[in-house]
């Protein structure tokens, strides 16, 4: 599985969040722009509608005034009588045409609404005349906008011609309203008049715009839309055109080119987008930098861990400034490294301890010693890797056998080394011969001489004669051995008050003696035996220790040692061994060649 770095993940999250934020901002500004556009559309539409109404009212009022003049003019009446066009009518029409700047037509109708005189090219349909004639009775100066059969619309007004109270005819004026609109809507790109039947382009050429509104024509409602393509955008207002009866008859469509303005907006929008993108990039950059800076200590921690994996514990983490979490992590890593370093030092130490243990074990003699008349067995169980206890069994040139047990105060390597030295010193001196007390005294002097640690060792040294069963011993501060003379007859070989070795260079050592008969047994031991503790911390004690020895009656030395070790384990009842335990048992056996040996 590919692992994504935390930094990258944070960067992705940041980019997404910032992009989302940017989208929201753009959307908000888009909505604002749209609202503004809508407001603009409403304003534009209102303004167009105002213009439209103004033109209509203005033209209508001019035309009404002239229509009224015509209606009162006798020439009109004459014309009605003569039913011919006369000069006066033409002149008046020319004046209106000049005023409005668009074609105007004039009609004189008889009382039935039938045109009898007509002038000009604008020809409204007959329904328009009927509509106006109908309206004259209801209101003064009726006017309407009417579709022209030729396309477009005409503004049409009417007035009645009276003779006395009697209406003898009507004067109707029609102007080209589309042409008028064109002069006022000059600024537009395209202007069209649209009816359900078709569109009349007044100016411009964007037929498509007119065609677009054709389908929805003549609903009678004002509206504004935006049309166009990417390259050209138009803003279109649609104004309804209604006749005098408020019936929608067509629409005025005005299109304004807003392409450039759109371009401006696009440019502004583009700049805004660019700014946002730059902002996002900058923010991401800063964020990445911040993330990288915060994670730099993490990388250092990772490097330390990696080097630790390769077994190198020497790379330390410098104290760094970091965020709380990373700081804690880095601290933890440093502690871990220190712990690992300590552990690895401990492992080295343990390796050394194991080596020391091997050396120490190799210094111990063969645990079992058998010779004619004597059986010996020794065992040492260290509490830790190495022991401050030792024992030895060796024969000297005279045929006598030395057995000894030593116990150095303290534990650990220093004690073990001192034990090894003491063992070696005693063995060497013993082999040189001399009385046992002299050997011990010389060993003491030797051990006092070079003893910077102030260590000392208690020893029980015995010189056994396998032939005679005679035992000479020196107890230098050691626990008193147990002796079994008869089965069940136990005694303690009381100490002689000799001081331990290593403290008093001039110390003198008293010798004790013992005569062993066949079957007699002696157990010498270190204080790991009588001071062994159970789970409650209670000591076994010398008395019980002696009792334990008593239970081994009839056993040979090896079995005795095994049984006592077992009893210690039973007493400890699972409690960890707090001190080294050394046991050495020896027994006088019946010499096989007793007939050649003296009794004692």
């Amino acid at each position, binding site marked *: 599985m590919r692992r994504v770095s935390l930094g990258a993940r944070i960067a992705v999250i940041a980019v997404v969040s910032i992009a989302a934020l940017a989208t929201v901002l753009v959307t908000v500004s888009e909505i604002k722009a749209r609202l503004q556009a809508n407001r603009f559309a409403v304003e534009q539409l209102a303004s167009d509608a105002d213009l439209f109404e103004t033109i209509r009212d203005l033209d209508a009022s001019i035309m009404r005034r002239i229509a009224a003049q015509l209606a009162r003019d006798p020439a009109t009446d004459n014309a009605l009588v003569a039913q011919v066009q006369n000069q006066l009518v033409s002149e008046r029409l020319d004046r209106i045409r000049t005023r409005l700047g668009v074609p105007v037509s004039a009609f004189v109708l008889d009382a039935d609404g039938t045109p009898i005189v007509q002038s000009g090219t604008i020809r409204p349909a007959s329904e328009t005349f009927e509509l106006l004639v109908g309206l004259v009775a209801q209101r003064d100066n009726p006017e309407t906008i009417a579709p022209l059969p030729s396309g477009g619309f005409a503004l049409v007004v009417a007035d009645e011609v009276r003779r006395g109270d009697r209406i003898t005819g009507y004067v109707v004026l029609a102007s080209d309203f589309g042409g008028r609109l064109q002069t006022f809507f000059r600024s537009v790109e395209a202007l069209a008049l649209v009816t359900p039947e078709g569109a009349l382009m007044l100016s411009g050429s964007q037929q498509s715009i007119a065609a677009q509104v054709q389908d929805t024509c003549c609903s009678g409602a004002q509206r504004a839309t935006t049309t166009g393509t990417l390259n050209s955008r138009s803003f279109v207002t649609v104004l309804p055109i209604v006749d005098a009866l408020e019936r929608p008859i067509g629409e005025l469509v005005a299109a304004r080119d807003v392409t450039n303005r759109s371009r401006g907006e696009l440019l502004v929008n583009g700049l805004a987008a660019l700014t946002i993108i730059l902002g996002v990039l900058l923010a991401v950059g800063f964020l990445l930098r911040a993330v990288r800076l915060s994670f730099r200590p993490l990388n250092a921690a990772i490097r330390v861990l990696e080097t630790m994996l390769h077994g190198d514990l020497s790379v330390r983490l410098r104290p760094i400034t970091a965020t709380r979490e990373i700081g804690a992590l880095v601290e933890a890593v440093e502690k871990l490294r220190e712990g690992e370093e300590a552990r690895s030092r401990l492992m080295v130490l343990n390796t050394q301890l194991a080596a020391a243990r091997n050396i120490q074990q190799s210094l111990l003699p063969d645990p079992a010693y058998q010779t004619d008349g004597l059986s010996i067995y020794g065992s040492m169980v260290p509490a830790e890797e190495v022991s401050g206890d030792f024992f030895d069994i060796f024969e000297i040139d005279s045929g006598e056998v030395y057995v000894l047990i030593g*116990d*150095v*105060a*303290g*534990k650990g390597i220093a004690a073990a080394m001192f034990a090894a030295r003491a063992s070696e010193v005693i063995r060497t001196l013993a082999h040189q011969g001399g009385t046992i007390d002299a050997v011990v005294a010389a060993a003491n002097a030797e051990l006092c001489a070079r003893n910077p640690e*102030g*260590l*000392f060792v*208690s020893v029980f040294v015995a010189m056994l004669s396998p032939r005679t069963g005679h035992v000479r011993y020196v107890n*230098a*501060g*050691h*626990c*008193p051995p147990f002796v079994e003379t008869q089965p069940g007859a136990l005694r303690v070989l009381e*100490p002689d*008050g*000799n*001081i*331990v070795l290593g*403290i*008093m260079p001039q*110390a003198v050592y008293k010798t004790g003696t013992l005569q062993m008969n066949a079957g007699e047994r002696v157990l010498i031991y270190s*204080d790991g035996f009588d*001071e062994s503790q159970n789970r409650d911390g209670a*000591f076994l004690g010398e008395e019980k220790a002696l009792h334990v020895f008593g239970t081994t009656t009839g056993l040979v030395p090896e079995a005795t040692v095994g049984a006592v070790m077992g009893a210690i384990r039973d007493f400890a009842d699972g409690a960890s061994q*707090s*001190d080294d335990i050394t046991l050495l048992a020896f027994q006088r056996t019946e010499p096989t060649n007793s007939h050649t040996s003296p009794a004692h």
Partner: protein
Amino acid sequence: MEIEQTETETGVLVVNLDGRLDVAGAATADMPFSVIAGSYEKVVVDLQKVEFIASIGIRVLIQCARRLAQKGGGMVLLAPQETVERVLTTTGIDQLMPIVATADEAHARFA
């Protein structure tokens, strides 16, 4: 292991020990006895309340006693319990540090 030190008018330091002078007790007592060895000459160690003494505990006392002896002073052990006294006599260190039964005897040693 609790250690209490009292200096008498005659300049003798009485050290009261309370507890077991085993491996842990010896570790606790090691430093105070080093300081004592450097600061005093005549020291009485009251062992009445010591229930147990291991060889490592003896070593703490011996190291102190040897340094005191080098300065011409010494250490006296006061009123050890029976089991403790047996260990002290067995190891023979009573040759180095006299064992006395009463405080008066102890002070008499330094008189």
